[in-house]
């Protein structure tokens, strides 16, 4: 007996089989998902109120620190998402192709100095850098911009100068911060992105704001821009929340003296303040006022605090994780940390 395969019906998987293939995360079950999420949230809130969780001192400390970090960071994430959206929707592929054809050695200094024109803190520079690299800018230049912009922008330098007024080192700290920031940004950018690997090996596969309707033509609409900005802000913002929660948890349970107990010798002092900057996860536009309060530490260590925080902290770690592949994220920390430490030590020796 023969079987005529041409007459066979094509195989159509059932909805159950389709669900299994997509997995639990991506299955569309709006009713069940929403109801479950709302019920869980309400249950948690009610339980918390009944148990008096709100009055527990540790919960209070955690809540105020976590919320304050997010309140400070979220507007800058939005600003970065807006700029990223403008780049995606209104800048044509032809313009990017012209820039992308330039050698990396030309793109990098322009990108580094470009941070002066875009006064965003580190939360804003990450989505912008992602968009620039995805559109064709050399990865080394994109990374250099991302790391330099939070340090060399005029608002940050001005706040640094204001904070150190009256301490006789204002000009030195501003200059030191700008130059060390540019050096670390350039070297780190080149070390990670300077090879011949394509952007796809640097960036995570998931684009938080994918759009095929307007990219490339430079003639997007306001509606497209709004959609881009909303997606990017939402995606990046959720990572900021996770980073803020971790930073708040560390600050709540770990005594500050663990991080600041080594103020005597210069090298432990530098490393202590770099670690403090990592944990505090402050915005670069105001961290100078915190640095200047660390009077027990030499100015070289304070400079390390100012240079390292905008490059690597807990909050940024999660933002980087949302944007770059794990190897690139680890490389940012591993390359920049010794550079910052060495630069701060040199500053301490030369100027003090």
């Amino acid at each position: 007996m023969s079987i005529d395969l041409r007459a066979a019906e094509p195989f159509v998987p059932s909805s159950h089989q389709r669900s299994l293939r997509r997995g639990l995360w991506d299955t569309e079950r709006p009713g069940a998902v929403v109801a479950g999420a709302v019920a869980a949230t309400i249950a948690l809130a009610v339980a918390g109120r009944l148990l008096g969780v709100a009055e527990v001192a540790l919960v209070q400390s955690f809540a105020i620190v976590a919320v304050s970090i997010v309140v400070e960071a979220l507007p800058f994430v939005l600003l970065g998402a807006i700029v990223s959206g403008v780049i995606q929707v209104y800048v044509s592929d032809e313009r990017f192709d012209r820039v992308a054809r330039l050698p990396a050695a030309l793109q990098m200094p322009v990108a580094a100095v470009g941070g002066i024109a875009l006064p965003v803190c580190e939360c804003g520079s990450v989505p912008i850098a992602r968009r620039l690299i995805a559109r064709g800018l050399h990865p080394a230049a994109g990374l250099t911009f991302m790391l330099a912009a939070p340090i060399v922008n005029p608002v940050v330098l001005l706040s640094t100068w204001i904070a150190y007024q009256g301490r006789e080192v204002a000009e030195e700290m501003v200059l030191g911060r700008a130059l060390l920031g540019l050096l670390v940004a350039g070297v780190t950018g080149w070390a990670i992105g300077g090879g011949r690997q394509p952007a796809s090996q640097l960036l995570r596969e998931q684009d938080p704001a994918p759009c095929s309707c307007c990219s490339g033509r430079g003639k997007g609409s306001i509606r497209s821009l709004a959609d881009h900005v909303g997606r990017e802000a939402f995606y990046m913002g959720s990572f900021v929340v996770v980073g803020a929660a971790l930073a708040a948890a560390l600050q709540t349970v770990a005594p500050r003296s663990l991080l600041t107990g080594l103020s005597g010798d210069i090298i432990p002092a530098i490393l202590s303040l770099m670690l403090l900057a990592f944990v505090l996860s402050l915005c670069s536009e105001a961290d100078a006022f915190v640095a200047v309060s660390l009077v027990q530490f030499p100015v070289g260590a304070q400079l390390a605090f100012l240079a390292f925080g905008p490059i690597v902290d807990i909050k940024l770690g999660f933002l980087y994780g949302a944007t770059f592949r794990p190897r690139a994220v680890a490389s940012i920390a591993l390359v920049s940390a010794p550079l910052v430490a060495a630069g701060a030590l040199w500053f301490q020796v030369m100027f003090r």
Partner: protein
Amino acid sequence: MTRWRAAGLLTWAITFWWLWLSGSWVRFVGPRTAWIVPFGTIVLTAVAVGAWVARAEGPGKANLRGMVTLLTFVAPVLLLVLVPEPRLGAIAAANRTGGLTAGGMLPAPGGDGELSLRDIDYASTSADSAALLGVVEGREVELEGFVTHPDFAGAYALTRFSMWCCAADALPASVEVLDEADFTDDTWLRVKGVIRRSGNRYAIEPTSTTRIDEPRDPYEP
């Protein structure tokens, strides 16, 4: 997910409006970065409205990944619902000492103005600081703060945080109160008295002690 995404952004926009109009932002953001609140309110509102208007273009169904992301995004707002007036208290003060002082946060005043807890605490670090700040024995002071029990204090100390950037960087200033009475941690007091020496630190010998409600702005100006 577009409408849920817009709802998440709108939730934050409303939260920022509440922080701004109610004045509650003073708990979270310092005076130097206070501009963040109106700036964030306006930008968030614009982005949330834009996301809502643009929602029709994208797929509208929710999935578990999207809902978890949404709940993560609005988690701090939910935390504020659970803990509407969070504060840094005695435990946070104990956690945040250790070599640091709030006194270095501001340039030293001329010594003619009213003294703060920060001034008196900082004056204990050196004679030059005390002279610059005008902290001398016998000077009358009136201070507000909450009760803590650090190791250096006999009965209790009066403590208050100073903040520059946000609550994450707030540092406490504590001054011993030479009182026979004692109070539980986190009790807010107004203490009138006279500055005295206590060991190698400055302290307050109280003439009157009054319980007060926590001020709207719990940080030192």
